[in-house]
């Protein structure tokens, strides 16, 4: 009964809105504008990702979603399982699909577990935009577009930077060998530096053990003193790598770049100890999908013909570090 009442109220209010729109919406100058505004308020977009809202990286994505919702006047709901639980995430997508939103935003860290649920959303006619991970399967699942960082291009860009900085022998410090995305970053780096005839070797380290990482980086630098460039694939490896350079007194003579941002990394860039950080600018992974879905719903347009829309790589250097630190406090970087 409650629902029936609610839906009656809803249809009543829609009727009132339509009447008001007709009454106030002036004769012929802008008939479309007011109707599109009132229908925008009814647009409901659901985002289901693998990023718990307490995670600092994902809270920036959520801020992007919320800001876009406010700017465009649509409703956006954010859902994520409270652990890395792909079964629960697929069930959340099923629930979201059952509630028939006007658009769906999903990340795809595990295509095998989530593919069927995403395809089911596409089959009932819900436009889907994928974000962050899953760029390689996005189109085949029927998504409109993918918004994320192309890992290969990001690694390639990092290689170009190191070559410009004058590195002649480079180490790729990988804290998760076997993770396809990270291996791709190393490959991009290797290919970029190959164009400058700079050899790259991969050093595998333990994600959860910063002390071990420090020792291994120091060991690699001692074993081959000609190494004069390092790219770490995440902040968890960047901080121990910098510590190793400090131990050996080689800060500044070995060029150091990293993927991703953290407070320590930004401070070290500002102080000139780290040359650059590759930023995937995840605020865009929240903001852009909402824009894309609203535009698709209202105009049927999709930029790039469904090709992945890269949000990175952006580069944070000594010139921009302070500015990025200020923006981090506002939750948009």
């Amino acid at each position: 009964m409650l629902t029936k009442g609610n839906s009656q109220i809803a249809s009543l209010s829609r009727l009132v809105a339509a009447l008001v729109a007709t009454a106030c919406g002036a004769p012929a100058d802008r008939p479309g504008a007011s109707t599109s505004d009132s229908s925008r308020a009814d647009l409901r977009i659901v985002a289901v990702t693998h990023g718990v809202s307490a995670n600092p990286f994902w809270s920036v994505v959520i801020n992007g979603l919320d800001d876009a919702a406010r700017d465009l006047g649509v409703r956006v709901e954010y859902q994520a399982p409270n652990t890395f639980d792909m079964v629960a995430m697929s069930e959340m997508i099923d629930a979201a699909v059952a509630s028939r939103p006007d658009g769906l935003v999903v990340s795809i860290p595990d295509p095998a577990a989530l593919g069927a649920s995403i395809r089911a959303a596409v089959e009932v006619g819900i436009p889907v935009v994928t974000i962050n991970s899953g760029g390689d399967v996005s189109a085949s699942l029927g998504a409109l577009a993918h918004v994320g960082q192309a890992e290969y291009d990001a690694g390639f860009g990092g290689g170009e930077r190191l070559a410009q900085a004058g590195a002649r022998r480079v180490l790729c410090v990988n804290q998760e060998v076997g993770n396809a995305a990270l291996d791709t970053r190393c490959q991009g780096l290797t290919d970029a530096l190959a164009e400058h005839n700079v050899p790259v070797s991969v050093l595998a380290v333990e994600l959860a053990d910063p002390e071990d990482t420090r020792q291994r980086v120091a060991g690699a630098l001692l074993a081959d003193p000609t190494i004069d460039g390092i790219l770490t694939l995440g902040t968890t490896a960047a901080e121990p790598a910098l510590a190793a350079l400090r131990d050996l007194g080689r800060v500044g003579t070995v060029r150091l770049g990293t993927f991703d941002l953290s407070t320590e990394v930004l401070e070290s860039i500002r102080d000139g100890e780290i040359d650059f950080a590759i930023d995937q600018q995840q605020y865009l992974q929240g903001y852009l999908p909402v824009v894309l879905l609203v535009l698709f719903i209202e105009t049927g347009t999709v930029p790039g013909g469904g090709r992945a829309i890269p949000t990175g790589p952006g580069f944070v250097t000594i010139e921009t570090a302070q500015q990025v630190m200020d923006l981090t406090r506002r939750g948009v970087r």
Partner: protein
Amino acid sequence: MSRREAGIFTRPFLRPGAAAAVGAVLIWLLFAGAAGSAFRSMAGTASYLNAAAPLGILAVGVALLMIGGEFDLSVGSIVGVSGMSVMLLTTELGWSLWPAIAGTVVLCLLIGFLNGLTVVRTQLPSFIVTLATLFMVRGLTIAAARGFTRRTQLGGLDEVAGYELARAAFGSAPVAGLRISIAWWLGCAALATWVLLRTPWGNWILAAGGQPEAARNVGVRVGRVKIGLFMTSALCACLVGIIQAVRFSGADALRGQLQEFYAIIAVVIGGTLLTGGYGTVIGAVFGALIFGMVRQGIVMSGIDADWFQVCLGAMLLLAVFVNRYVLLRAQRAS
């Protein structure tokens, strides 16, 4: 309130699990209002039943074990190891799927047996023993996955011989989006209820949980009963792991995390006492159903998923209050 009034109005509720059934109806009404037609639609119904089924299967095993007076915190890790075991046996060692499933079942039964044997022999609290198993089994799962493949997410089960039949048995959705796992859930629950209410085993389980000394004195082999119960809960977890591996055509070393707590919550919401000797499997079925409805209903009604954990904790507390009240009334009435 006089005893007679208690008889007329409250006797139907003075059964373990009845409060959970009433709770399930109330929660359904709540979300049918809040989430509107989505929750009442076939797709919505399928979505919460599908979400409840794996937890429901776990809860059947955990309920029997808790009625028998013990905990099993290792079920989530067993879900993880069973999926990974199926994947490694097939894709790395080249077994075909059905022998791999059989081997995985043996592995799970062995883990359950070791849990039970350790608890019975050492008289240590099962909470501690199975907490240790939780970490060891999870760690071994991750180590084995990385050792064999350098990855923790494996796919490609659909290319293994025997997959078609396994898909039909474990991973299909034969009717209107309803998954076959719901049939497994209800089948397990029916079997467990029958054992509990209609066989001598049921009496032994209740006695082992409620009055272990008295049970021993009348000749119940409490140790064997408990070891059997640990193996049963491991088997239920194994079934969930196999269902998920087949359905998603792959495994993830992290699968099943936190499920041990969700299963205990479902069982407690279902009216089973933490102290053992009192409870039903039917109650656990409703407990899992409530869990599924709340988790999916929150998404469908557009409430932030952060609130799910708040609801879960609140429901657990409420269930414990209701259970204690019902138990006191039942004792007074008898």
